[in-house]
């Protein structure tokens, strides 16, 4: 490990100050909470600035805190190959209009990972070039990893479809 969690957190706070809404470290994982309007720029700086150089977007996921306000958290796990440390960035997203900015302009990995979060949680990623469902099929009703989706819910049968005719577009 390049830095202790305290040192990394201090460096993050020094760079971003008030723009880090909240932060903590738990079990050695550093977490910062950022605003969704600010996220794209902060993450871009985290990727590009040599003090951080978080060149890997390891994971994008979300957690549904049903009953709390705001309801969702979108969670990014970043890893810096140069410095060998990790950090976790979170954006709190309200239920009423669940969206965050897409990170596809920064990392190609964001493409599929964000599609999965859309698929499972119904959180939209603004600026995503191709926000389709990925693990489930287009006709699926609802977003199954939301806490209010019953685990035993049945889905209606869907007619067979021709993927070339529907919903498949090339980007070349």
């Amino acid at each position, binding site marked *: *490990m390049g830095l202790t969690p305290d040192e990394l957190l201090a460096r993050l706070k020094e760079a971003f100050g008030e723009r880090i809404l909240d932060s903590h470290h*738990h*079990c*050695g*994982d550093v*977490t910062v909470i950022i605003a969704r309007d600010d996220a794209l720029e902060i993450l871009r700086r985290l990727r590009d600035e040599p003090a951080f150089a978080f*060149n*890997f*977007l*390891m*994971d994008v*996921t979300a*957690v*549904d805190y049903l009953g709390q306000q705001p309801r969702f958290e979108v*969670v990014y*796990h970043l890893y810096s*190959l140069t410095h*060998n440390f*990790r950090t*976790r960035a979170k954006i709190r997203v309200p239920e009423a209009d669940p969206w965050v900015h897409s990170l596809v302009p920064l*990392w*190609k*990995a964001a*493409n*599929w*990972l964000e599609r*999965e979060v859309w698929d*499972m949680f119904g959180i939209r990623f603004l600026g995503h070039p191709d926000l389709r*469902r*990925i*693990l*489930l*099929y287009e006709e699926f009703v609802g977003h*199954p*990893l939301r806490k209010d*989706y019953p*685990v035993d819910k049945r889905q209606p049968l869907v007619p067979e479809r021709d*993927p*070339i005719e529907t919903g*498949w577009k*090339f*980007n*070349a």
Partner: protein
Amino acid sequence: MPSSKRAVLPLDLDATDEIMEIQMGPSHPASHGTIKFNLKLDGEVVIDCDVEVGYLHRAFEKMAEQGTWNQVVPYTDRLNYVSPLINNVGYALAVEKLCGIRVPERCEYIRAIMSEISRITDHLTCLGMAVQEIGAQTVAFLMIESRELLWDIVEAVTGARLTISYTRIGGVTNDLPPDVPDRIRAAIVHLNAILSDCDKLLTRNRIFYDRMVDVGVLTAEDAISHGVTGPMLRASGVNYDVRKAQPYSGYDRFDFSVPLGTKGDNYDRYLCRFNEMEQSVRIIEQALRDLPDGPVRLDDPRFVLPPKQRVYGSIEGLMNHFKLIMEGAKVPRGEAYQAVEGANGELGFYVVSDGSGRPYRVRVRPPCFLGMSALGEMVKGYMLADIIPTFGMVNMIGGECDR
């Protein structure tokens, strides 16, 4: 000349060129795994490829929220079912990180040994199947034969070949049987002989070399941007291995090297996996040599089931057992992300606990999901037939990719 086999896209098409749209999969005889490629071809050149995954989706993350923390372990077996022990270890480490506990030293060694055995079985499967699809049937049989030797050992240790569920929070289910270290050593001798045969048959084989070299090139920059890890990343020349960078389960005790490629083509990926098996053997030999005595489970009534004698012999033990089974271990509130080096790359578990006996959220960061997201770009500009070895070298395991 770098990647001379790749056509430069977009092709200069005139009105007479006909673009063919073709769907390959989801059940294609030459691809091992349920996956669909929506292809756009000019003649035999792939000019666009849209990869469709999800055919094996089993709602792992939803199911993990339904039971207690230990009841998730059998689901993790089914993620990467070619190296299930690594999934077990990764999940257990993530929960242990959240609990703030560390397993006994002997347990760490056993977990490392079993993880490395699994890595070898995974690489053998990947290479065996991938080369079989391009015609090297003999090698496939040899590799499956040696995998069998290792799976016999896995069976002797865990009681099952595939659905092993070997780890628990705070330890493993049972100690190594007394004859297993010798059996592992015997299997390694046999494995080395087979690998040497495979090496002679394949590595300098003209047909194989021509099919693999300069095909499916992934640059280091693209690999990092795609979040690709593991042998695929290292074949592109980036030195990142979780076992070295952020050692877990005692990997810092072992002396091993990380094989790196230069070009990031299929041949480099083949060599990386092949050499990694030799490094895994080194780790196993060192771990068997230094294997300490002691318990394989933590004695911590908060998370670990008491020994049966205590359950049947005392009321405290019985209550402890009952509470752990019925309510589950009370993992403290919080969240943790733990990465382990899976056979295909960084296998991460992000666990969130609300303090009850059940996981609030279990997220898997599946390495081959990210590898598959890069595949669409890796096959563009190459021939249709090159999809098969490129896909084989990505080593998609449906259970892990689609969860």
